[in-house]
């Protein structure tokens, strides 16, 4: 249990009951999506403090500023880089590399989506790739559905591969001290394998039927991808900063440099390079635009959640739950890791994986003593990361990126419906989780 000053009775309830009830209500409200998730988590955090479960000082201690800093820094960098047009260039270039063959385009867009998701974040990636996909499928007179479906899968699988690819990984990395390279060496190989395995059902269901008129293919080949880059200077600055940040992620861990510091330094440097040639007024305009590009809903959602979970943790509920889980798994590390993998995958299919992982992190930390120290928990962390990231593929509400793609599909007049998507996506996700469980078992036990 955390060392925080706590009220003895809150509205006639013990802190355990109050925090537990508030936690369950918050979860239910997040799942129902009746109210914006940032509002729900901020309200829960405020109630946690106002009720006396946490003091304000304790609540601030509960916020993981490494996660917040990393997310914010990367959002600024990607927001500025996007304006150079490089992401459109990559998507068009990849389509032309396969001579605009419909199946080839699907595979290439999947690869580009996966790589960008690993290096940036899922939501930004699909925001950049989906419009180009719709343009290409519209030109080829093909249904966009298989392409968008494949991109959802690729975004979530690609995001699994690195520390910065998906918010659950950012949170796990921050809470455990596992670095960029740890994620890369442990999760990238299996993510790449799962990505290639996922192509098979997509080919069987849609790929073999994808055909386009040669005249329309020629139209795609006439796209001049080089024209998509409309600011070469900005592109050079952005690539320079992105490279520095990646180096910071890769080597910084050994020198005690947190990912958030690398990302925030990169954001500040890119803002400087972008603003320096301009006058005061233009600088204000550019900085305002960059700061507006930050997804503040996500950031405030995180802050509120961290406080809520910290409050719940402070009452000892998660410690008790950890003992319950260990009781169920017989205290066996292998069974615990595989169980967490499957449970987190199914849970992430149903609810947002961010609150789920935020809750699981302190719960798993409480298992350290039973397994012989924090270092022994590593396979369990990889199980949590694999389950919560891949679980996002299980349904349309499993990840924010899925909903973004569904929004594009809707606006293009080719909606992706919840049930038909899940009928194909959930079995595919379960296959990826089974492969992951085998990987975890063979590699770590």
């Amino acid at each position: 249990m955390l060392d925080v000053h706590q009220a003895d009775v809150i509205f006639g309830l013990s802190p355990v009951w109050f925090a537990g009830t508030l936690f369950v209500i918050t979860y239910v409200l997040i799942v129902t999506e009746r109210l914006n998730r940032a509002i729900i988590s901020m309200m829960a955090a405020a109630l946690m403090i106002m009720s006396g479960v946490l003091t304000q000082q304790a609540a601030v201690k509960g916020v993981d500023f490494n996660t917040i800093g990393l997310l914010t820094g990367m959002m600024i960098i990607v927001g500025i880089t996007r304006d150079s047009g490089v992401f459109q260039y990559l998507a068009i270039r990849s389509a032309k590399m396969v001579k605009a063959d419909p199946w080839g385009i699907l595979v290439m867009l999947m690869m580009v989506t996966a790589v960008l998701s690993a290096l940036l974040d899922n939501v930004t990636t699909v925001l950049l790739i989906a419009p180009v996909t719709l343009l290409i499928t519209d030109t080829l007179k093909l249904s966009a559905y298989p392409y968008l479906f494949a991109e959802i899968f690729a975004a979530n699988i690609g995001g699994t591969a690195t520390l910065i690819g998906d918010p659950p990984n950012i949170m796990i990395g921050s809470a455990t001290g596992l670095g960029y390279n740890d994620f890369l060496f442990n999760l990238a190989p299996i993510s790449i394998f799962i990505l290639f395995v996922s192509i098979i059902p997509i080919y069987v269901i849609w790929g073999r039927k994808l055909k386009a008129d040669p005249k329309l293919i020629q139209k795609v080949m006439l796209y001049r991808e080089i024209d998509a880059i409309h600011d070469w200077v900005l592109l050079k600055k952005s690539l320079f900063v992105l490279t520095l940040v990646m180096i910071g992620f890769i080597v910084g861990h050994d020198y005690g440099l947190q990912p958030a510091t690398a990302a925030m330094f990169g954001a500040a440097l890119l803002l400087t390079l972008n603003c320096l040639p301009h006058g005061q007024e233009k600088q204000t305009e550019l900085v305002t635009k960059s700061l507006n590009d930050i997804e503040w809903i996500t950031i405030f959602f995180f802050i509120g959640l961290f406080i809520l979970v910290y409050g719940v943790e402070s009452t000892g509920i998660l410690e008790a739950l950890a003992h319950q889980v260990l009781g169920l798994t017989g205290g066996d590390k292998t069974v615990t890791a595989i169980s967490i993998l499957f449970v987190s995958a199914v849970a992430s299919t149903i609810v947002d994986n961010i609150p789920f992982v935020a809750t699981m992190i302190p719960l798993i930390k409480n298992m350290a003593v039973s397994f012989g120290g924090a270092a022994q928990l590593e396979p369990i962390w990889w199980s949590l990361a694999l389950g919560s990231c891949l679980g996002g593929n299980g349904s349309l509400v499993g990840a924010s990126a899925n909903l973004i793609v569904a929004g594009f599909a809707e606006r293009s007049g080719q909606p992706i419906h919840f049930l038909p998507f899940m009928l194909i996506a959930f079995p595919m996700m379960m296959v990826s989780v089974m492969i992951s469980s085998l990987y975890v078992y063979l590699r770590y036990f």
Partner: protein
Amino acid sequence: MNASEVMDPHPTTLKPTDSIKSAAKYIMKNRYRSLPVVDDDFCYLGIFGVNCLLKQVIPKAVFMRQGLENVSFIHESLEDLFQRFAEVKDQPISDCMNNTVHTVAPDTPLTETLLQLYETRASIPVVESGSCKLLGMISYWDIGNKILHAGGQPDA
């Protein structure tokens, strides 16, 4: 002064069932920028204009929310644009008219009406308060002429 005093009370209108092709030909022939769409009871439904036409011939991925911001890599011919137009030409204009254009009431004060006109950058419909009946249209030309003639000397 209010909107009803500066509007054209007998505007040319289109019907929602008119095809995109016929409506397009009509506005091109008469060099209209946009026209109001009304039903048989003269209930205002929306605006059809050159913007609707452009929207039909430019790829969908551009106009959707969060769509492509930069399309400089697409190089198309007039034939390509016509092909896109041909796919929708027989659809009714109700499918592509703009029904989010601001309207004003007949008693909307003149300055407020001018502000709406400035922000809309196209003719604005005057719609009866409490109903949907189209009473008239206010264009830049109507307002411009009236302002120029206000001093009694058109060449002033």
